[in-house]
């Protein structure tokens, strides 16, 4: 067990899978000679060469469409979107092709494709480069959507995503590459579609994922000082969504707060809250609360941006409210 950063964990997963399986290759903008916009693929070009680390034109349709085609004929491409905001340029490929082709052609071929995309706000990149649109992608059957909140999960889930025979959107948070955590040595896979209790507690259940996990952990530490014991369930995968551990925790605490960085309306919290109401209504002691981004395009100004993004204080306030 070594303590490494999220960046190192993702990089290790990619390298291990490329070493293990020659059909795995990387393609994307600046993944090669540059070493990756977030330095995740630093050193890969020298190690694997241009055939396996393909620098693409700035052309998201060609990147994702190309990766889909290569996957259809048996390769295992890992396509990188420099930011998830550029996924909107490639929306047809993610939604109309990747999520549909296996089903639409009666299962004749598979799409063992991973799309790595960097999302999230907090870096003063302005409205078009700071979005957390994860829920949009989780809307589509046929696609798998994974968004880890710890280095160990990032490594294990990315390895599982590369070995999956389905298209997987793997969402990394732009402000979490330096997040450190214990990562087991060796070939450890974490199955896609399994939520996990990241912190145990008896008073309130927080359901979250990705950056929300960081906020929730921070909030839980503060609340613990006041004697409030928070249980945190990390979804890790948004589709398939594993509600098992969420409901189990909720049936114990009877109170829930859902924390996500994306907008509240039609978001992950909306989905999880609905499922709690549908499947555990009798266990409710208080209305489910959602903590999410303010309903504005993210501004550039640092103070305004931070005011729009959910903070640990917002989580603390929401927990206290459901405990009233």
């Amino acid at each position, binding site marked *: 067990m070594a303590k490494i950063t999220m960046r190192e964990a993702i990089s290790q997963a990619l390298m291990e899978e490329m070493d293990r399986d020659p059909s795995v290759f990387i393609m994307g903008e600046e993944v090669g000679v540059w070493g990756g916009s977030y330095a995740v693929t630093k050193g890969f070009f020298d190690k694997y060469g241009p*055939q396996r680390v393909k620098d693409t034109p700035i052309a998201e349709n*060609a990147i*994702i*469409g190309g990766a889909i*085609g*290569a996957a259809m004929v048996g390769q295992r491409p890992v396509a990188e979107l420099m930011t998830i905001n550029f996924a909107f340029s490639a929306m047809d490929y993610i939604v109309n092709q990747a999520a549909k082709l296996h089903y639409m052609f009666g299962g004749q071929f598979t799409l063992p494709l991973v799309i790595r995309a960097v999302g999230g706000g907090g870096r003063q990149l302005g409205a078009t480069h700071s979005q957390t649109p994860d829920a949009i992608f989780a809307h589509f059957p046929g696609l*798998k959507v994974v968004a880890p909140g710890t280095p160990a999960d990032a490594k294990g889930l990315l390895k599982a995503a590369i070995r999956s025979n389905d298209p997987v959107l793997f969402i990394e948070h732009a402000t979490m590459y330096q997040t450190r955590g214990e990562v087991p040595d060796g070939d450890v896979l974490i199955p896609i579609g399994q939520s996990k209790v990241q912190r145990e507690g008896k008073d309130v259940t927080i359901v979250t994922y990705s950056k929300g996990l960081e906020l929730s952990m921070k909030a839980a530490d503060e609340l613990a000082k006041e004697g409030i014991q928070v249980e945190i369930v990390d979804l890790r995968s948004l589709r398939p969504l594993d509600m098992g551990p969420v409901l189990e925790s909720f049936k114990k605490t009877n109170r829930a707060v859902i924390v996500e960085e994306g907008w509240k309306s039609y978001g992950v919290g909306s989905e999880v809250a609905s499922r709690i109401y549908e499947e555990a209504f009798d266990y409710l002691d208080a209305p489910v609360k959602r903590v999410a981004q303010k309903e504005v395009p993210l501004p550039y100004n640092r103070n305004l941006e931070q005011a729009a993004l959910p903070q640990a204080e917002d989580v603390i306030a929401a927990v206290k409210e459901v405990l009233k």
Partner: protein
Amino acid sequence: MDKIGLVIIPVLSLERGMDKEKQLQMYYEMVLIRRVEERGAELYQAGKIGGFMHLYIGQEAVSTGLIAAREPRDRVITAYRDHGVALNCGVSANEVLAELLGKVTGTSKGKGGSMHMADTSKNFWGGHAIVGGHLPVAAGLAIGDQYAGNDNVTICMFGDGATNIGYFHEALNLSKAWGLRVLWVCENNMYGMGTAVDRASAVSQIRQKADGYGMASDRVDGMDVMQVYEASRKAIEQVRTDSQPFLLEINTYRFRGHSMGDPERYRKQEEVKKWEESDPIGIFHAQLTKKKVATDSQLSAIDEKVAAEVTKAVEFAEASPEPSMEELFTDVYADENSNQ
């Protein structure tokens, strides 16, 4: 006995260098497409086929000449006007008609419909319904082959309308930048839905668009199957040898509407009638008899054989079962236990 049931001694056509058997096979395929489409139209009018349906009538020579020039290892991918392409790739009339009727015996188990037929065992990678959407995917098929180190060619067919959307440009640019073996084939039938090419495209000859990518190109009469075959054969050979993409514009005309629900206000019936005089099947029929590749009665025998085959295929499709309700939830994911 060859595939179409005639005993033929292969003899080389002096003029074209193609054996007689292959020419008759092409004639058979063109007539097969025509009859399948005609029966499809009847079934559609009878309410047995749902959704959108785009007929290939008038364009049979394009796909037939093109696909006759490929090797089996060469991949074919096309847009939504795909029934004929499927038949040329070797998909049976049974499966095409069954898919149109939404039956489990169809190419896509009844889950794709008219616009989404594929048979990867025949190296036919679909029928794709987003205009231009399959072009980057075609580049991807070629990326896969390039990565595997083989020299398969991907033949990607699309309409003139697809050359105005961004996907076309991203795909052509990538294919040239990366030296992908793709034969880009534009079936220019003069209208993107109801908008004439020169009302939608900056240039009226689609092949000119290759120039922007430094890509080789050619333009051929798509009503003459032998010309299509020759141009396609040369282009495929060039793509394979040079490891470079190529844009082939094939000029053609659809005799029916864009889809079954087309009021055809954008073109005059005189124009359609004039083009019908250049019926690709009629042209090829005349060539075959003139060159003495076949007699009228031999060709009539093929016509009759096709008619019987298509009648049986309609019976097969109508008698085939509907997909079971379990089929609703299969193939959403390939991995097991991908609960939703």
